[in-house]
């Protein structure tokens, strides 16, 4: 049966109310946290007795917060780059290759998505201890790469499969070598897939905390790891500020993605 919203009569009011409540339930905690970051009381009092930017100033003056922010950004950038490059190679193999076990390989690449991250964290930690990678930046990159790569492979393989192979053939007959054809013709054609791969890879690393706890060392902490530590020690407005900044950063990235996707469709 076709449900026509305008024909539902007074049910419309009920449905709108339920939808509104659900949205409120999901968004209110975030709103509260953002409000608290401007709260003049240092005990996270609500409603706030007054408004201030002093906690933001405090966070930006704290070398520990800045260090973890930088760590998170660096890690995210390196993971994104590696994830997109490997995703491209794996994507070409899966979407264009013809070899036995191709579908198995495709499934295998996706296992980190369904593996419980706590198990992955412990397993990686155990291996990295032996390889002297635990607590190093390289170890961190590799661990997050395991988590980010499936997203990258899914996005890029999907884009490649949606792009006709004849495009590659046409470029080759025009005189381009196989990889020249792929770089000059296929990469631009799947740029929205590459962009999605990059965004998802970055976000995977950016807000990942379970595996990161195992990889972190006192001198190498990502933003979420430091936040978790701070929350456990003392609940300060700093947490609200950093959380708000994380939300803002994520929103900006999603906005960018939306603009890019709109452009790709045109």
């Amino acid at each position, binding site marked *: 049966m076709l449900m026509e919203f305008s024909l539902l009569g007074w049910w419309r009011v009920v449905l709108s109310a339920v939808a509104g409540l659900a949205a409120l339930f999901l968004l209110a905690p975030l709103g509260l946290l953002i409000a608290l970051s401007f709260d003049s009381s240092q005990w996270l009092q609500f409603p706030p007795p007054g408004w201030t930017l002093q906690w933001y100033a405090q966070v930006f003056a704290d070398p520990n917060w800045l260090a973890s922010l930088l760590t998170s950004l660096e890690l995210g950038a390196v993971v994104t780059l590696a994830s997109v490059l490997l995703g491209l190679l794996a994507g070409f193999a899966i979407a264009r290759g013809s070899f036995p076990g191709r579908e198995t390989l495709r499934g295998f690449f996706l296992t980190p998505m369904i593996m419980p991250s706590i198990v992955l964290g412990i397993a990686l930690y155990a291996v990295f201890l032996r390889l002297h990678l635990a607590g190093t930046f390289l170890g961190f990159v590799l661990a997050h790469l395991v988590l980010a790569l499936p997203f990258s492979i899914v996005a890029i393989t999907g884009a490649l499969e949606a792009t006709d192979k004849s495009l590659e*053939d046409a470029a080759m007959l*025009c005189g381009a070598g196989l990889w020249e054809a792929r770089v000059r013709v296929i990469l631009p054609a799947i740029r929205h897939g590459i962009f999605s791969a990059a965004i998802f890879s970055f976000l995977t690393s950016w807000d990942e905390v379970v595996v990161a706890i195992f990889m972190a060392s006192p001198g190498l902490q990502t933003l979420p790891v430091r936040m978790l530590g701070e929350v456990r020690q003392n609940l300060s407005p700093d947490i609200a500020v950093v959380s708000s900044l994380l939300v803002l950063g994520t929103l900006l990235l999603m906005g960018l993605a939306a603009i890019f996707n709109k452009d790709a469709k045109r």
Partner: protein
Amino acid sequence: MSAYLELRNLRKEFGDFVAIDNISLRIEKGEFITFLGPSGSGKSTTLYAIAGFVEPNAGDVLLNGRSLVGVAPNHRDIGMVFQRYTLFPHLSVAENIAFPLRVRRRPKAEIEAKVAQMLELVHLTPMRARKPAQLSGGQQQRVALARALAYDPQILLMDEPLSALDKKLREDIQGEIKRIHAETGVTIIYVTHDQEEALRLSDRIVLFNHGGIEQVGTGEDLYDRPRSSFAAGFIGNSNLIEIRLDAGAAHLPDGTSLRHFNHPDQGAKRLMVRPEDMHLAAEGIAGQVTERIYLGDVIAYTVRTGWGQDLSIRAQRRAAQHQAYIGETVKIDFNREQAYIIPE
């Protein structure tokens, strides 16, 4: 003398499936050749072997006497227009045409001149700044044609380039392709499953069936002198009648004898008569009209014979001495010169 392009005993298997076998063909420079055949007959596999995307299991492809086997597609200097739209979506029309020249690192001035010339050739100069997505299907294929010709390839391959277009547009672009062939003199190999398209375009038709070549010849050769029942049935419509030749007469399955058959062969044969070569007459093959379709210029009859075969007749409306209607018993005849014994 060696041919411009020569295929020698080409064979290609995909697993258990033999896609083409023992394909041998000689093509002269400047010819317009069509590979015609039903789907799965091996025509596209042969084309892709020439392009270099299919590596043959056996046999050779020679261009100007030089073997192309083992030469990568990008070093074969062959142009191709594909069935699907293959313009590069991020490049404009002009940039698409310039692409093969840029890859070859030709000087800028030369590229610009060539792009302008190609746009002129396909009558798309006003569209030069458009993106492929802003063009119609027909325009996209014309740009693809310009791109494939921009680097003056030795051969132009076309793999059912018009199959996605509607009939009217297809005929327009067929005309355009013929004109471009005449203007550039390029050697074209064109794959199609549409016999009308093959007849309209080509100097010679190569008819494929079951991975082999059934017959090679001009449209007239294939229409008037098919070498097999398959060829007779695939090009145009035909009536195939089992006969026995004996002492200047043809004996039909129902016992009717048609006189004045002075064919050198004797015995059981298969006779082909085109529907337009048959007419209603006072004497001849007896049958009952089961279908009558008025088509304006001609009237198409289906007549069921005494031995249960349906024969097709296309009678000129004006020339029809006899008009017949459904259910009527009629006699059919044909001129003996237009009767053809299939030599298989």
